[in-house]
């Protein structure tokens, strides 16, 4: 059986921003490689993301990452292990004094991360191209581009260090219906690369379409049968979203 990448057991924790995680119900879930977990509450998800990144304090219960419990360490401690986790915020987080390309390239440049035989900038180029960010925009700063381009840049940056875990805050936000296919393909690619993915969003159809299980903040438990208990209209909407972008192929047939 595949070991979970992240596992929590009755977790109650305080995140760095002072928000409490699991105060209503302690948090329990297991996220395995190649799996997509959904959290229906972006704020709750962000608190969890902070704890996963080690930015918080455990009140009770425990959380394991890559089979190792997160424990309190005093004083200066290395944070290079965070390279294993990629994060894409909802809309903020790009450095305003850097171009889109430099933003994506920053983690690779800072950590000196590159593939053998390729330049330092190759990974950033690859990710931006994959998310179809037009090359003419690469040199622009975040305030000069649209929300969807910012979103794509955030997603590109999250995978530039080839992480094993992806934490995504409202990834669907800003993506129009026409570009939904691109996001779906990108997520599928991350899943195929055995990345464990956690998505925090309040977009129920998107979560229904993308996730293998769902957590509701007030319940704190992962639910693999969430589709069965869900309002049928949401499931129908998720099905529609799944099919979106396939219209071209149908017409051409």
């Amino acid at each position, binding site marked *: 059986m595949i070991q979970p990448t992240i596992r929590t057991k009755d977790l109650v924790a305080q995140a760095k921003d002072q928000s409490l995680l699991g105060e209503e119900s302690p948090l329990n879930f297991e996220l395995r490689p190649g799996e997509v977990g959904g959290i229906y509450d972006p704020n709750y998800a962000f608190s969890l993301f902070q704890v996963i990144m080690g930015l918080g*304090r455990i009140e009770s219960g425990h959380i394991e990452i*890559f089979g190792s419990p997160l424990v309190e360490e005093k004083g200066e401690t290395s944070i290079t292990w*965070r390279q294993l986790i990629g994060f894409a915020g909802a809309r903020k987080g790009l450095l305003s004094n850097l171009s889109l390309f430099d933003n994506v390239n920053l983690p690779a440049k800072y950590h*000196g*991360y590159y593939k053998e035989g390729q330049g330092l900038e190759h990974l950033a180029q690859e990710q931006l191209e994959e998310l179809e960010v037009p090359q003419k925009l690469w040199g622009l700063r975040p305030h000069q581009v649209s929300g969807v381009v910012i979103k794509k840049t955030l997603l590109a940056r999250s995978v530039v260090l080839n992480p094993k875990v992806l*934490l995504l805050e409202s990834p669907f936000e800003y993506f129009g219906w026409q570009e939904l296919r691109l996001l779906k393909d990108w997520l599928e690619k991350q899943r195929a690369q055995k990345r464990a993915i956690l998505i925090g969003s309040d977009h129920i159809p998107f979560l229904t379409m993308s996730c293998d299980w769902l957590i509701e903040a007030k319940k704190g438990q992962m639910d693999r049968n969430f589709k069965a208990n869900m309002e049928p209209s949401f499931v129908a909407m998720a099905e529609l979203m799944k099919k979106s972008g396939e219209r071209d192929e149908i017409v051409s047939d």
Partner: protein
Amino acid sequence: MLKPNLSDFQDQSHGTQSHKKEFLRVMLQQVYFTFIQAMPLVVIIASIVGAAVAFQTRFTLSFVGTDGNKLGEILVFVLFRELTPLITALLVIARSITAVSSELATMTVQREIEALEFIGIDINQFLLAPRIAAGVISLFCLSFCFWLISLAGSWISINWFSYWPIDRFLSVIAGSLMPSDIFFFILKSFFTGAIVFYMAARTGLKVKGASFEVPIMTNKAVVDALFVAMGIQILLSLIFYLSFGVKI
């Protein structure tokens, strides 16, 4: 801070080397903003201050009827020991402390700091340390340039009334400078630069996330930096005079 014990995690990156490169890049950028961009202002203010001090000194000494050596000593005493470190510190606080503090505060509000932490970038190494190093370098360079320009201003001001050859003027200044003067000049630049930049960065990072906090923290950073800079100047001058006495 929470951390997993990942004994089998092997950092595939070439971190240390690239960290140094990034440190250097951010530091040089800050030196450009703090030192190079401040030069026009320093040129204007240093010339005026140098000219005014020399004029007042020359004017006052003319009543006493002392020789030119005293003028050189007073210029070293007033300009080199006291005014140059103090005025450059004030200029840096007005220009760069406000900038650093508000930049970091805005970065916190825009969640850029948080994003850097999530990427595994050490904020102290990436944002604080290069700015502090740049603060020290810039303040020393600015003080040195201020001193040279104020001397030029002094010389022009003195020559307005009577001819004083530049070589004689410089030899009088050089003769009045003691090694302890130079040592304390460096010390003042070092401590003031390091401490005020550290305080500005820390204050900027204290913002919790609301944009209304940005001006409050910037204001606080400037006021704190003013008090600290003046405190350092007074303290080091006091140590200097207690150690070497007042010799004019």
